[in-house]
C-alpha cells in the first residue's frame, strides 16, 4: 500500500499518538467520574511521591489499582499477541499463522489450568505463567514438527495440525474442569481463570506480563534481519549466513514465553496475533525492522480499543473481550483464507 520509506515515520507517529491517546482515554473512562485534573494529581503524586491534600483515597485506589494495571495489561498483552503472530507468520512463511490458530494459546491455557488443578498456583504467582509457557511450548513444537519437513512448511498441514492440537488442548481443559467439580474451590478458580479478560487484574499481573513482553521485544529486535531472511525460505537464509535451526529455536522460545505470559494474565484472546501483523505488513512492507515496533504499538492499540469499545457500548453486560476480537478477527481470517486459495489455486 504505502510500501515506501517516506511514509514510515508518519505511520509510526500515528501509531504512537493512537497508543497514548487510547491509554489516556482509558484512564479517564470508567463507571465512576473522576476528573482529568484529579487523575493528573494522583499520577503526579504516585510518580513524584509528594503529598497532596486534594487527593481522595478511593479515587486514588480506582486510578492506581484498577484502571492503570488494566490499561498496562491490555497494552502489553495485545502487544505480546501481535508480536508472536508476526514472528510465527515470518517463521512459517505463512500469513495465516498466529498463536490462536496454531494451538499455542490453547496449549498455554491447558498449562495454566493444570497449574491451578495441581494447586501450584497457590504456591507462587509465577506457577500459572510457567505452566502456560510449558503448555504453549509443547503445543507449538508438536504443530511445528508435524507441519515441517526438510525446512518446508505445508500450509494445509500446518493449519490442520493447529486445529487438532487446539481441539486436544480444549478437550483436556474441559476434562480437568469436569473432574475437579467435586472440589469446588479448584473448579471455581479454573472457571474464573478460563473466563479471561481484563477484569480484576492487579499489579501482580502487570509484573508478570510487563518484563516478559519488554524483554521478549528487545530480544526479537536482535532477530529482525534473520526474520526478513527466513521469509525467503530456509535455503536462502542459510546461504546468507543465518543459522536457521538455532534462530528458529530461539524465536520459538521467545514467542512461546510471550504467549504464555499473555495467556496466563488475560486468557485466550484470539485473532489479534493474526490480524494486527497482517494489516501492518500491508502498510509497512515486509521488513521486520519496522514491523516489530509497529506490532508492539499496534497490538496494544487493538486490544485496548476492543476493551474500550466493550466498556463504552456494552458496559452493562459482561461480554468477554475474546468475543469482540473473534467477531472482528474471524471474518478477516476467512477473508485471508479465501484470498490465498484464489491466489494459489488450492489450499
Amino acid at each position, binding site marked *: 500500500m504505502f*510500501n515506501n520509506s517516506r511514509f514510515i515515520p508518519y505511520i509510526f507517529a500515528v501509531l504512537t499518538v493512537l497508543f497514548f491517546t487510547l491509554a489516556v482515554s482509558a484512564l479517564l473512562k470508567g463507571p465512576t467520574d473522576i476528573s482529568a485534573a484529579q487523575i493528573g494529581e494522583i499520577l503526579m503524586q504516585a510518580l513524584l511521591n509528594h503529598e497532596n491534600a486534594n487527593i481522595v483515597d478511593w479515587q486514588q485506589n480506582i486510578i492506581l489499582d484498577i484502571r492503570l494495571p488494566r490499561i498496562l495489561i491490555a497494552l502489553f498483552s495485545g502487544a505480546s499477541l501481535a508480536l508472536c503472530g508476526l514472528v510465527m507468520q515470518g517463521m512459517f*512463511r505463512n500469513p495465516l499463522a498466529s498463536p490462536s490458530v496454531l494451538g499455542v494459546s490453547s496449549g498455554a491455557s491447558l498449562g495454566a489450568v493444570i497449574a491451578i488443578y495441581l494447586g501450584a498456583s497457590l504456591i507462587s504467582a509465577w506457577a500459572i505463567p510457567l505452566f502456560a509457557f510449558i503448555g504453549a511450548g509443547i503445543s507449538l513444537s508438536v504443530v511445528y514438527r508435524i507441519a515441517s519437513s526438510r525446512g518446508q512448511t505445508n500450509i494445509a498441514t500446518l493449519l490442520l495440525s493447529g486445529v487438532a492440537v487446539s481441539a486436544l488442548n480444549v478437550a483436556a481443559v474441559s476434562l480437568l474442569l469436569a473432574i475437579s467439580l467435586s472440589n469446588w474451590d479448584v473448579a471455581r478458580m479454573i472457571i474464573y481463570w478460563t473466563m479471561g479478560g481484563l477484569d480484576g487484574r492487579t499489579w501482580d499481573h502487570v509484573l508478570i506480563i510487563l518484563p516478559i513482553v519488554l524483554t521478549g521485544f528487545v530480544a526479537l*529486535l*536482535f*532477530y*529482525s*534481519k534473520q526474520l*526478513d*531472511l527466513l*521469509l*525467503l*525460505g*530456509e*535455503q*536462502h537464509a*542459510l*546461504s*546468507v*549466513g*543465518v*543459522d*536457521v535451526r538455532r534462530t528458529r529455536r530461539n524465536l520459538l522460545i521467545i514467542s512461546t514465553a510471550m504467549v504464555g505470559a499473555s495467556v496466563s494474565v488475560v486468557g485466550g484472546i484470539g485473532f489479534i496475533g493474526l490480524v494486527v501483523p497482517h494489516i501492518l505488513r500491508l502498510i509497512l*512492507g*515486509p*521488513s521486520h525492522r519496522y514491523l516489530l515496533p509497529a506490532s508492539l504499538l499496534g497490538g496494544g492499540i487493538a486490544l485496548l480499543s476492543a476493551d474500550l469499545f466493550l466498556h463504552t457500548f456494552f458496559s452493562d453486560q459482561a461480554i468477554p473481550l475474546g468475543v469482540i476480537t473473534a467477531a472482528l478477527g474471524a471474518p478477516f481470517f476467512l477473508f485471508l483464507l479465501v484470498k490465498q486459495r484464489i491466489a494459489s489455486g488450492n489450499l
Partner: protein
Amino acid sequence: MSAPLSCENLSFSFDKKPMLNHINLTFKEGEFVALIGANGAGKSTLLQLLLGLLNAKSGKVLLHGENINKLKRREIAKQLAFVPQSIELPYAFSAQQLVAMGRNPYLGAFELETENDKQLIDQAMVQTDISHLQQRLVNTLSGGEKQRVIIARALAQQSPTILLDEPIASLDICHQLETLQLIKSLTKAGKTAITALHDLNLAARYCDRLLLIGKREDGITTIISDGTPEQVLTSDNLRTYFSIQATIKQQGGKVALDNISPCTA
C-alpha cells in the same frame, strides 16, 4: 594456499537409503564447473552437501582447508554464496532490499549498510542487468527477473566461491546466455563457480570442467566422470547416464552435441 572448496570421501543417505557415496573433489580458484546428470541423479544433493545445508553421513567438506562443520554460518556465507533452485518470493521486498541481503554476513544485528556495501550492491545489480528494477517489488517480477535478483544477491555476498542450482532453468535463451557469460567472466576474475546444469551444450560451451553424477553398475551413486567437456561427453556416457544418442562435434574448439535423440527411439 589450499583450495577454496574441496570434499573428502563425502557420503549421504536419506531414510537409510544411500544417495551419494565416496565423493572426493577439489575445486580450484577461477574454475567454472558444471554438475551434470539425469533428473534425480543427485546434483542438488551434492550442492547442498557442499554448502553444509545437508549433513553428510561421512566425509567432510573443506573451505580453504577448514572443516565446514566447525565454521559458523556467517563465516561460511562469506566464502560460499548460493543460488537455490526454487525462487518463490511471495513477500514484498524491493529488488534492492533483496540484493542487500547478500551483505548480511558482514553486518551486525543493528548495523546499516556502509557506503562500501551500497557500492557492492549497486555493482551486483549492474552486473546482472537489474538496475532498472531497483525499487520494484520482487513478488511482481517475472521468473527470469527474480532469478537475476537472486544471482545479484549472491554476487553482493563477495564470496570466493559461488554455487548455483539450475540458475538458468527459468530464463529465456538470451538471459540464459547472458547469465552464463556473466558467471564465466566472474571466474576469469578469480571466482570459483559450480553450477548444476541440464543443458549439456551450454555446459560444454561455457564450463572448463564437467562433473557427471550417476549410478554406477554396482548401484553406487557417485562422480562417474570428471574432466574437460571432451573427456566427459562421450557417446558411452551419454547413452548410459542420459539415455540419449548424439553426434559429438567440435565447434570452434568446443564440444557440441548434435542430432540428439532418446535411446529408446
